[in-house]
């Protein structure tokens, strides 16, 4: 219990510091939100000053941060500087689109990655294993935006089976999902494979086999269940990876999610939207990694949490 409190407290601290980062980074930025809204050469200076005042941009930075933090805690994320919409609406609209895409990619990544990894491990060094590993390191190396462009070129431009970009029909979901899922799928496959190989050589497996339990049952019940721990703990890392990828993939496919909104808002210097979105993504990552740590401890008491782990 003490550990849980500690872990949650730490997550809150990291989120607080992350909010300082997003706030500071986007306020210190050169170029002003006002200049992207009003034309500075034709607008009289007093009108500009009035706008600055009404948006609180003339206050000292720490006061701006307090305003910002109070807003965050009461669910008021401010108003977009470019289209005067509440940031909350933009976030909610974007979240639906992003979650749809991320969920689809998550299902594809694990749905293909886990069985392929298990099969590759059970038939180690077979042709299937080699093909799976080859495809895995291919998807691990081809940057997702390159993959996206190649898929668009083949399936949208040449074959005209699928739309180039946008939303509307189920066909629009296919390409972005595949692109988003490719690398996480390869990683899931590799981790599953390594973990299954480890468990398949473990003492308890040998004992089970020696006691005459059929190989299929040993592999698919005992080995798989013990291997899934490391696959599940991969989930938190995967969420971080997926969120990072949505930034580019959404832009390529003009998918109106959080990622493309964020990139757009940064290019427009729309501070409230940009900092809200960046912070939101960070909060999701922090929560996911805290949940991952807690789940791991709960699932597998052997684990001493040493907060290690790179992707």
């Amino acid at each position, binding site marked *: 219990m003490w550990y849980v409190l500690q872990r949650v407290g*730490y997550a809150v*601290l*990291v989120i607080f*510091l*992350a909010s300082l*980062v*997003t706030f500071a*980074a*986007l306020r*210190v*930025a*050169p*170029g002003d939100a006002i200049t992207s809204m009003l034309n500075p050469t034709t607008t009289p200076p007093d009108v500009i000053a009035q706008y600055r005042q009404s948006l609180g941009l003339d206050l000292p930075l720490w006061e701006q941060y307090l305003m910002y933090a109070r807003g965050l805690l009461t669910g008021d994320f401010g108003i977009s500087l470019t289209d005067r919409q509440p940031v909350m609406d933009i976030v909610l609209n974007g979240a639906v689109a992003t979650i749809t895409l991320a969920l689809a990619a998550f299902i594809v990544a694990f749905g293909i990655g886990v069985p392929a990894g298990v099969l590759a491990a059970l038939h*180690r*060094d077979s042709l299937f294993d080699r093909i799976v590993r080859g495809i895995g*390191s*291919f998807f*691990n*190396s*081809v*940057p997702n*935006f*390159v993959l996206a*462009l*190649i898929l*668009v*070129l083949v399936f949208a*431009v040449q074959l005209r089976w699928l739309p180039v970009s946008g939303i509307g029909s189920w066909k629009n979901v296919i390409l972005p999902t595949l692109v988003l899922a490719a690398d996480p799928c390869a990683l899931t496959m590799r981790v599953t494979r*390594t973990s299954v*190989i*480890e468990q398949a*050589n*473990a003492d308890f497996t040998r004992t089970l086999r020696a006691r005459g339990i059929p190989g299929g049952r040993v592999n698919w019940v005992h080995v798989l269940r013990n291997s899934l721990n490391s696959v599940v703990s991969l989930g938190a890392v995967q969420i*971080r*990876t997926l*969120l*990072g*990828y949505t*930034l*580019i993939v959404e*832009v*390529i496919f003009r998918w109106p999610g959080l990622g493309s909104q*964020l*990139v757009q808002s*940064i*290019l427009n*210097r729309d501070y409230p939207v*940009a900092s809200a979105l*960046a912070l939101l*993504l*960070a*909060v999701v*990552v*922090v929560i996911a*990694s805290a949940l991952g740590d807690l789940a791991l401890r709960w699932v597998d008491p052997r684990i001493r949490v*040493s*907060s*290690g782990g*790179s*992707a």
Partner: protein
Amino acid sequence: MSGTSSPALRGPRRRLMPRYLGVSVLLWAVLAIFAILAIIGWAVLLVPSLSSLWTDQSLRSTFLPPFSDGFPLGTDNLGRNFAWRLIAGIGVSVFVGALVAVISVTLGLALGIFAGYFGRAADAGTNVVIDVTWAFPEILLAIVLAGVLGPGLEAVILALSLTGWAAFARIVRGEVLSLRERDYVAASRVLGYGKVRISVRHLLPNLIPITLVMTVYFMAVAIVAEAGLSFLGLGAQPPTPSLGGILSQGRDYLNSSWWPVVLAGLALSLMVLTLNYVSDGLRDHLDPRVGGRR
């Protein structure tokens, strides 16, 4: 990890290619080709009299396919020689990748040793900074920083270096935690040597293998990230050719010309694939304990 998988279970492995430092000679050759292309790219980018090679436009010869007269890889939407633009783009990628790798590895080493060997407060402080950095997906932090600093290669290099070190610092910290318990470190402490001296004399040399591996790995990551940021318009600005910029421009003309996207994508992927393989091979060769990823 666990040493349970004995070599006998693996069966013999046939090697078609001789290896050097655990990496196939073929991969070293590909790497060398990219290095040469990058050097030519730097020459073309930096020597003013050569810049016409990749800037000359001709609206009469736009979208020429590869193998056209005088244009081995065709031309782009402004009729510029695509072969030279690709080579210059590779130059930009390799430059950014190498610089970012060196900076993030250096930062990671320094902060990792600091966290692992300079007491609890140093450890806790560094870990908080790492976790805050870690809370943002790299590309997000890079986008935010590039947004703050204004688009351009300097912003990209700074943004990627400031995000890349965290992962390595954590690895170094882990290594240091086990290294500092070794007898020779204890002996040096007894002899009265300071922490800085022990870090440089005893910790650093033991970290060289993992540092080499991660430098190559970070180079691959940085090259992809630079291309991604340039693709989004936050990296190298238009007259400067970069693989990301070529891809983003090529995207708008996919209907009329496929080769910029395919060739730039191929160059980028091949570069990253090679670097990943080299880093994997180096790791297996230099540090057989952690054969993890395979």
